[in-house]
């Protein structure tokens, strides 16, 4: 696990309609099924379902940004965070 304070992760949020976010981030909070999860660099691999809510992430310049999502799926591996969301829509 890395302890480098400049360590960053790569975040991608993808809906069936489009790529919503693709950016490097310092930290991320995602709406898990049982409350928010915080993710920092060096997180161990995780696959999880996400509930409705907001993804809050801090970009490399330190700005906090948010994006709301419907339910979805999260994969964390090797400091790469992949979120699929809004798959129930347009049915």
């Amino acid at each position: 696990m890395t302890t480098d304070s400049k360590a960053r992760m790569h975040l991608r949020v993808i809906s069936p309609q489009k790529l919503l976010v693709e950016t490097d981030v310092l930290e991320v909070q995602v709406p898990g099924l049982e409350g928010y999860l915080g993710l920092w660099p060096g997180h161990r691999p995780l696959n999880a379902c996400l509930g409705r809510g907001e993804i809050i992430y801090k970009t490399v310049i330190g700005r906090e940004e948010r994006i709301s999502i419907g339910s979805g799926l999260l994969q964390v591996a090797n400091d790469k965070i992949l979120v699929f969301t809004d798959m129930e829509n347009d049915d």
Partner: protein
Amino acid sequence: MPALIDLRRRIQSVRNSQQVTQAMKTVATARFKKAHRLVVERRPFWHIFPDLALALSQAAGLGRQAFLEIRPEKKIEVIVITSDKGLCGAFNSNLLATAEAFLQQKKGEAAVAVIPVGRKASAHFRRLKYPVVKAYAEGVDKRFEEISRELKQHLEYRFLFKQVDAVYVVYNEFRSIIAPRITITRLLPLGAEETVLPPDHLQPDWEPEASRIIDYLLRFYLKYQVQHYLLESQAAEQASRMMAMENATKNAEELISDLVLLLNKIRQASITRELLEIQTAVEALKQQGV
């Protein structure tokens, strides 16, 4: 030598066709832009989702589950996606030729059935001896949501109840405006023959348990993949039509300039001849001393 009036008519008719092809090109361009935007925006999902589904299923060790089950291919279905309308160059004929070669190759090993999508494919396979399970011949571009939902349900049912062991799709993938790429791909089962383990052997955590996540994920696999193929094909179709009409317009232009050249030559020749005749007549009269 053709008469001037015929040539003029001919030029006029070529000009009319050129106007039509020009208009069709404009329409195709507008439709292409729309279809292209759709495809480009949705591609990240289409390309990453199946990989993720496969990787997660393998990580979870559920190689035998539902859509992932690889059975010996005894019965297969092939979805062939073409356009409804023609006038798009070799778009359909190339695809149908490839599809037929593929069917021929598979025929030896398995019972093959076809699902043609698009009027051209439907008409084509009506004449051939392959059994057709289901056909969509009307308004594929307008009803694509409905069709993708129906296809999804159909495939889900057939595959899960083992009425079919594998489903392939033959479609035109939009690559560039110049030419689409004919792609043959296996839609079902999703599983790969050999397991690709991720380089790090840290076992991931699952929340909730793996089987529920995989179920949730695979619910969406078919729906979005079918949509993917239909939309790619549509974008490729509009691009092909755009190119075909562009070429037709250019050819018409060339034809017109050739015909106009010929027309002018003939006109000049007849003027020269008439002048000569008058001149000869004048000379003749002079010699008679009138």
